[in-house]
């Protein structure tokens, strides 16, 4: 048993490093863990007596995270009343200060996670109630604020390996939820009443056949009328409303003939009920409404689900910062309270809350999401910093110069808003077709009615109803939504989330694909690319030394070095960090330096071989060196590596005849290297957000359908302006919010899959529409000639719709 457990972490299923360092005793067995994070999480689960989680779970958990001080600091911000305003509901009572909030739980993999979370949170002192929704991964927690703080709850959740953050259901989400409930009520009412009407209809049909007493027939008619009335007034309301809206805008949507068919059938039946002559079609009315509502309900649920998924990705860090007051105390305040002239302390890992100037400290900052620049920029006293950039190395004190509307970030936001309003629309295939079709049907029904008018109402009414029902663009109206829903759910499995309806259709038609570089085509973080040895030391020895020196630094270069070697290395002693330059420290009894060539020259007194250096730099890499006071050991070249599948995606798109453009804000050299690696010939570097936008507008003016793929704040306006856009899930909130699709997986292949699926979807939509129209064209003459009874028309219509749905479901199957 222990043999098999050695290979994979018992908690998360990842491989266990050699030496079996981390383990936890669970249910009497010693289980190996892959990392201290998993170990801590498993310990916490066992300690709280919830080992059963491991018995019941069906999927391994996500890898445990070690709790970092910054994370805890962030959650503290959620305790501020000003921050809580947006998402906490107060229930004041004699039991104290009761509060309730919705949390999004990340890391839920199976039902046992729900159980674990509910038990764990409920066991906390001060928590009054907790309920986790398995479908949406939302938890509703009620707590007594005098006994426990929200940050304690969030921290407790992260101890067992999940990540929770408050979530503001927002007006839109709430509206969607109310809408869903209303739709469900409409659907249920139509279903229940429809069944009663059907039952009575069967009695009437049989009565036609075997004879029925007249007073019973009248009675049944009246009962059917009574049952259908609520369906018409309550359930069918959305059709009437949207038909009226369409007519007001002088458009002919699907709902016009639907409403007309329902009204004509209903009024005709009412007339029959009152006069006692003719047939009633109450059953057709109810069933028709029920089926249409069913389709729309599922469409709406799918839309809601994708909105929720998107919501999960774009959660913001609480907007708070540490302000240094006039008495030198620090206070946690919200960004809104920040004023020009305030001094704020920004710790490593924190985001600058506003534009400002450094007044104390040296560090380097990451502006990649704002500018596309892949390497951190060193900053010193008097350096300007942009709100939204991230401080990397050491604490800085910044004097705020611009807040709110005046910041660079707000400027980009305004650009984004303008781009959104100017976005060119692609008219949707199905809508256009359907509008003409609907108009034709209405004219036809009118002429059929006129033709049979002389024969009396008992003839023209059923014929006209049959024409309206048989030509009901039901199949036509299902043709697009079913295919889109199937394609969307297929792509969600591949990690490509569609958040706007038109995205897939437009993606299939895109002629130009525009990519951003940093964080999109590349991973957006440095990795060790090459090690040049200049002494007798081997590569692992050099890396071990480098890792020991870089142990404490958050700089991307240090992270790249640490990631390059798996072994655990004891940190060097008396480490001294020169931000933006390098690090020195005592390893064993030797003082060693690691840093930029300039740093090594100045501090270690070593000159580096220039030819090697230039060769390594020629590729656009960042080069650092490792040396002691006597000799240089190694040179490391770091670069922002391509994302998995980037090059393949580009070549697939090129093979499919699409134009590829690379637009980046980064330096020419770095962009050129990536362009060369991926085979992109058309690229531009050092672009500002406006430049990118202008480039896209220029393409669009030439008639291009532009698909944009990006991740940064500087990409957001372009994402909004492009006809269809894909944002990286790991990128900025702003980019994700302005894009039509989100790439959740780290593999770019999903985009290529997305384009292919979108094209197959278009084919299937065309097939469906052709089928729906040709069926109607065939059935119409028969209906107009009076050969089709309304019930036959209803069966034909349903069969046609089923065929269309079946065809759309083919999208879910794997290719060919």
């Amino acid at each position: 048993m222990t043999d098999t457990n050695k290979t994979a972490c018992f908690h998360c299923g990842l491989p266990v490093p050699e030496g079996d360092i981390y383990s936890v005793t669970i249910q009497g067995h010693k289980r190996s863990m892959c990392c201290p994070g998993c170990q801590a999480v498993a310990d916490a689960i066992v300690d709280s007596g919830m080992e059963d989680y491991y018995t019941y779970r069906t999927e391994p958990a996500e890898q445990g995270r070690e709790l970092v001080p910054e994370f805890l600091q962030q959650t503290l911000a959620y305790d501020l009343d000003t921050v809580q305003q947006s998402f906490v509901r107060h229930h004041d009572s004699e039991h104290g200060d009761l509060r309730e909030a919705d949390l999004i739980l990340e890391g839920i993999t199976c039902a046992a996670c729900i159980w674990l979370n509910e038990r764990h949170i409920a066991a906390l002192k001060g928590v009054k109630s907790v309920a986790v929704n398995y479908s949406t991964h939302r938890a509703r927690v009620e707590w007594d604020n005098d006994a426990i703080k929200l940050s304690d709850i969030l921290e407790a959740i992260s101890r067992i390996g999940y990540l929770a953050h408050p979530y503001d259901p927002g007006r839109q989400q709430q509206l969607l939820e109310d809408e869903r409930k209303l739709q469900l009520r409409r659907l249920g009412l139509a279903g229940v009443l429809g069944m009663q009407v059907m039952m009575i209809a069967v009695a009437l049909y049989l009565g036609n056949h075997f004879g029925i007493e007249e007073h019973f027939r009248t009675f049944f008619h009246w009962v059917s009328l009574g049952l259908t009335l609520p369906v018409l007034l309550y359930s069918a309301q959305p059709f009437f409303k949207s038909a009226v809206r369409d007519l007001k805008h002088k458009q002919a949507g699907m709902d016009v003939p639907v409403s007309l068919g329902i009204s004509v059938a209903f009024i005709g039946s009412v007339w029959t009920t009152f006069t006692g002559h003719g047939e009633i079609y109450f059953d057709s009315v109810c069933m028709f409404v029920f089926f249409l509502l069913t389709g729309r309900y599922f469409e709406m649920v799918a839309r809601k689900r994708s909105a929720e998924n998107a919501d999960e990705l774009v959660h913001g860090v609480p907007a708070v910062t540490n302000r240094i007051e006039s008495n030198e105390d620090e206070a946690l305040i919200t960004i809104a309270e920040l004023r020009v002239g305030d001094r704020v302390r920004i710790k490593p890992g924190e985001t600058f809350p506003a534009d400002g100037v450094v007044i104390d400290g040296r560090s380097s900052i990451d502006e990649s999401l704002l500018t596309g620049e892949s390497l951190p920029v060193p900053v010193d006293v008097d350096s300007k910093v942009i709100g939204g950039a991230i401080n990397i190395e050491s604490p800085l004190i910044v004097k705020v110069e611009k807040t709110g509307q005046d910041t660079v970030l707000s400027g980009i936001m305004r650009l984004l808003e303008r781009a959104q309003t100017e976005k060119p629309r692609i008219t949707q295939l199905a809508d256009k077709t359907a509008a003409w079709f609907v108009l034709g049907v209405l004219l036809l029904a009118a002429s059929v009615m006129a033709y049979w008018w002389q024969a009396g109402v008992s003839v023209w009414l059923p014929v006209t109803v049959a024409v309206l029902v048989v030509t009901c663009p039901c199949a036509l109206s299902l043709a697009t939504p079913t295919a889109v829903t199937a394609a969307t759910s297929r792509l969600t499995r591949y990690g490509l989330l569609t958040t706007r309806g038109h995205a897939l259709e437009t993606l299939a038609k895109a002629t130009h694909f525009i990519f951003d570089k940093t964080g999109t085509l590349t991973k957006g973080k440095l990795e060790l690319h090459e090690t040049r040895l200049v002494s007798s030391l081997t590569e692992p020895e050099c890396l071990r030394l480098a890792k020991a020196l870089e142990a404490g630094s958050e700089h991307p270069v240090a992270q790249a070095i640490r990631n390059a070697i798996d072994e655990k290395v004891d940190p060097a002693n008396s480490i001294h960090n020169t931000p933006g330059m390098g690090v020195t420290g005592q390893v064993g009894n030797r003082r060693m330096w690691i840093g930029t060539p300039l740093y090594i020259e100045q501090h270690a007194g070593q000159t580096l071989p220039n030819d090697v250096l230039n060769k390594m730099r020629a590729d656009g890499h960042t080069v650092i060196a490792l040396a002691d006071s006597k000799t240089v050991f190694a040179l490391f070249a770091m670069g922002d590596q391509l994302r998995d599948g980037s090059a393949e995606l580009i070549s697939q798109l090129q093979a499919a005849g699409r134009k590829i453009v690379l637009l980046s804000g980064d330096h020419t050299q770095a962009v050129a290297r990536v362009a060369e690696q991926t085979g992109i010939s058309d690229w531009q570097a050092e672009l500002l957000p406006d430049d990118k936008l202008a480039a896209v507008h220029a393409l669009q003016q030439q008639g291009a359908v532009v698909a944009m793929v990006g991740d940064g704040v500087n990409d957001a306006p372009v994402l909004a302006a492009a006809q269809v856009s894909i944002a990286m899930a790991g990128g900025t909130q702003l980019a994700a919010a302005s894009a039509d699709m989100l790439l959740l997986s780290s593999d770019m292949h999903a985009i290529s899959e997305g384009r292919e699926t979108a094209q197959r979807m278009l084919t299937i939509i065309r097939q469906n529409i052709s089928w729906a129209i040709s069926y109607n064209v065939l059935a119409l003459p028969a209906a107009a000639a009076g050969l089709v009874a309304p019930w036959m028309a209803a069966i034909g219509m349903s069969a046609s719709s089923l065929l269309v749905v079946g065809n759309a479901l083919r999208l879910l199957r794997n290719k060919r």
Partner: protein
Amino acid sequence: MEILYLLVPLALLLVALIIVIFFWAVRSGQFDDLEGPAHRIIMDDDDIRKSDENKVDKD
């Protein structure tokens, strides 16, 4: 067959009741999570109770 004049209105009453119950169920969130409860009922709480008792004993 005159009994139909009694039975049909009775059926209508029943339908009205069903609809009232359905509306109540929708409003009270019975349809919000269709997957969770199915799993939740299988999970035993034995272990929790044991550890709770232990805590009480220690106190």
